[in-house]
């Protein structure tokens, strides 16, 4: 079975490239059995979401906000 080190790398790469069918299958099996990597996968998505909000929040809070 895939190790957590490999699974976490794929969970990150998933955001940057389409995974192959084999990778998807192995990752699917791993995350089905590993709650820690499942959580890691959710955190990767949160990081993306946080980054997008981070970029937009400055105009409301610190900046003068003139468009």
């Amino acid at each position, binding site marked *: 079975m895939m*190790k957590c080190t490999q699974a976490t790398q794929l969970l*990150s790469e998933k955001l940057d490239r389409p995974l192959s069918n084999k990778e998807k299958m192995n990752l699917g099996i791993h995350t089905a059995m590993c709650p820690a990597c499942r*959580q890691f996968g959710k955190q990767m998505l949160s990081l993306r979401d946080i980054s997008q909000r*981070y970029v937009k929040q400055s105009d409301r809070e610190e*900046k003068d906000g003139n468009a």
Partner: protein
Amino acid sequence: MTQALSRSDKQPSGQLFHNNEFMNDLRLQMLKFAILQVRNEALAEDAVQDAMLSAYQNIDRFNRQAALKTWVFAILKNKLIDILRKEKRYTNASILEEGASLNDEALIDHLFTENGHWQKDERPQKWDEPVHSVESKHFWRIFDTCLEALPAKYSRLFMMREFLELDTNEICDNEEVTVSNLNTTLFRARLRLRECLEDNWFQGENNT
């Protein structure tokens, strides 16, 4: 700032500069990126303004938002590199980057057991999103600090991908890195960011 750009005596053929929301978002993205790279707001503002101005002067070339964004961003990146070189901080940044891979090994050893599974204490926790605005301000400060703690190359590539939302091929072309190198760098950047956020925000939140 953007006034200079929208004060158009000659009407540009492209409609992009008239899309205020797009232009404003783009400016903010660039500014965030620039400030984190040069660590000086005034220098960052100047660089962003210069890059926007060159884009405006070449507006005929673009018909898509993505094309404008890639182009204006390439200009900005060169300006930032010039600034860093002038300040002689560029060499320091490269030295820091050499040490970075060692720290990655150390982080990976810290997070995972020898056979490649999560250390019990390091297993990722459920993250609650910051909800209240006071909390948010504090959260964003921590996020800033975590970004600044990344090696320069990591934060640059991470920001190109996640702030500027450039696709990976564009980043590889611009930065002259291979796809696998980019994937690994992004993975390491995310691994460090999540570690930093978990240690400084999400965990602290649970303790209070």
